[in-house]
């Protein structure tokens, strides 16, 4: 496992061989055993119990995109963790949120971040947003073996497309199938409820502040109907993770900002438990 010292302390030949700008390609030639997709799983009976992350939502607004996630991880009917982080920056202009088996997903994000950073350092230029989205596809596909055993990872990828000047959202299925989503998207067990909420609340001309409020409303509705999704936990001061990606790059809202949004929504929900209502016609 030692990264550098094979007998002489000199960089091994593989390090100095001209080749691809991809870190995963380098690993698969040099040390394939540490790539997550190459692990051999023993045959198992039934589904392996591991903490699961639940709901991730994303919404675009003119000038950027918002990606947010709740904080709950569950294992069966038990809450495994109340303050898990499921939304991560992928690089300066993109972020990834993960639902599914938490351990594998976090590892996949770590490798994905490294893959983008490695390319950027070697090539001296960033991958296109499309290129990043495709790279994530490949990684999910390499996890298919484990997904078949119940250890699926289903991310939501959002970023600011510098070339096109707008925010974009990509969703994935367990086989690595990738599709671009218009306006809003959600993944994870609470996603059906979140998607319904976003469908009713989304408008083309949202401001950044309105978009961040919208995603928390959607997460609240997901938590309302899905037991695996956690709502804002005011007593423990655990609020959703909200990230905004614009021309200025990636920004995660501070705890104070997130708590302000969550608290104002909670206050309104005391009067209207089902949240804002859309017009009938």
């Amino acid at each position, binding site marked *: 496992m030692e990264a550098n010292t094979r007998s002489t*302390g000199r960089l091994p030949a593989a390090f100095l061989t001209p080749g691809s700008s991809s870190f995963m390609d380098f*690993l698969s030639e040099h040390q394939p055993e540490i790539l997550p997709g190459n692990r051999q799983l023993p045959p198992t009976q039934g589904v392996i119990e591991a903490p699961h992350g639940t709901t991730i939502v994303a919404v675009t607004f003119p000038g950027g995109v918002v990606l947010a996630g709740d904080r709950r991880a569950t294992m069966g009917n038990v809450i495994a963790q109340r303050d898990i982080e499921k939304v991560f920056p992928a690089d300066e202009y993109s972020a990834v949120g993960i639902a599914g088996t938490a351990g594998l997903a976090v590892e996949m994000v770590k490798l994905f971040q*490294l893959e983008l950073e*490695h390319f950027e350092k070697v090539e001296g230029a960033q991958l296109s947003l499309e290129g990043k989205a495709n790279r994530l596809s490949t990684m999910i596909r390499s996890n298919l073996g484990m997904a078949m055993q119940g250890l699926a990872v289903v991310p939501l990828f959002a970023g600011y497309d510098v070339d096109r000047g707008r925010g974009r959202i990509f969703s994935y299925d367990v086989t690595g199938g990738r599709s671009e989503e218009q306006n809003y998207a959600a993944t994870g067990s609470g996603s059906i409820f979140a998607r319904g909420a976003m469908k009713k609340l989304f408008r083309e001309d949202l401001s950044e502040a309105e978009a961040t409020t919208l995603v928390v409303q959607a997460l609240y509705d997901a938590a309302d109907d899905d037991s695996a999704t956690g709502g804002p936990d005011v007593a423990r001061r655990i609020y959703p993770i909200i990230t905004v990606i614009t021309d200025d790059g990636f920004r995660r809202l501070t705890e104070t900002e997130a708590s302000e949004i969550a608290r104002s929504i909670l206050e309104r929900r005391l009067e209207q438990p089902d949240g804002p209502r859309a017009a009938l016609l």
Partner: protein
Amino acid sequence: MSTPFYVSPQQAMADRAEYARKGIARGRSLVVLQFADGIVFVGENPSRALHKFSEIYDRIGFAAAGKYNEYENLRIGGVRYADLRGYTYDRDDVTARGLANVYAQTLGTIFSSAAEKPYEVELVVAEVGETPEGDQIYRLPHDGSIVDEHGSVAVGGNAEQISSYLDQRHQEGMTLAEALKLAVQALSRDTNGSEREIPAERLEVAVLDRTRPQKRKFKRISGGQLSRLLEAGAAGGDAEGASEDAE
């Protein structure tokens, strides 16, 4: 049939060192110096795309003089080493000292192996610390030795002369504009002592800035930002404002 000439080991090594030094001297020199908020890399480079300086990891930068294909190869090897180490252990376990050791071993093995031609490169590996005292700068000549440097360092053909010029004038706690001005002055001096002008578009400048909020502290400085800094350095007065621009 003629018998091969006997060449003493001393002579063989001296010849190889001479060969490497001549190769390095063909390229232009570059300088790396500490300033209040980090470490700045300055060199003359007419190319916009073929860089002499680059990011290796979060706090670690790389500079090289000499043959491009050889140092590019070492640079990518270093990026792979750092990324693999950070992935296997932790991001904090990637250090300039570790990287400098690996480079030194690599250059040393190549230099003393009769089967390979020595690399015509001289490298600098620098890591910016939380405070100026934590900054580390290592110079790696072609033969695989390591020199632990403080304050300022120059590599390349004209390095000795530039180094002594920098040693006399470099001070702790300089602003970025002051450090940049000093670096450009040092690079502008020819071997015969006369000065020439290096226009801003021929300068390659990068910094490791400890005040950057991001985890990755390496940043290139070019275009408008570079000319503002050069002006501020030349004016001498408004250097403080210029270093704020750089953030």
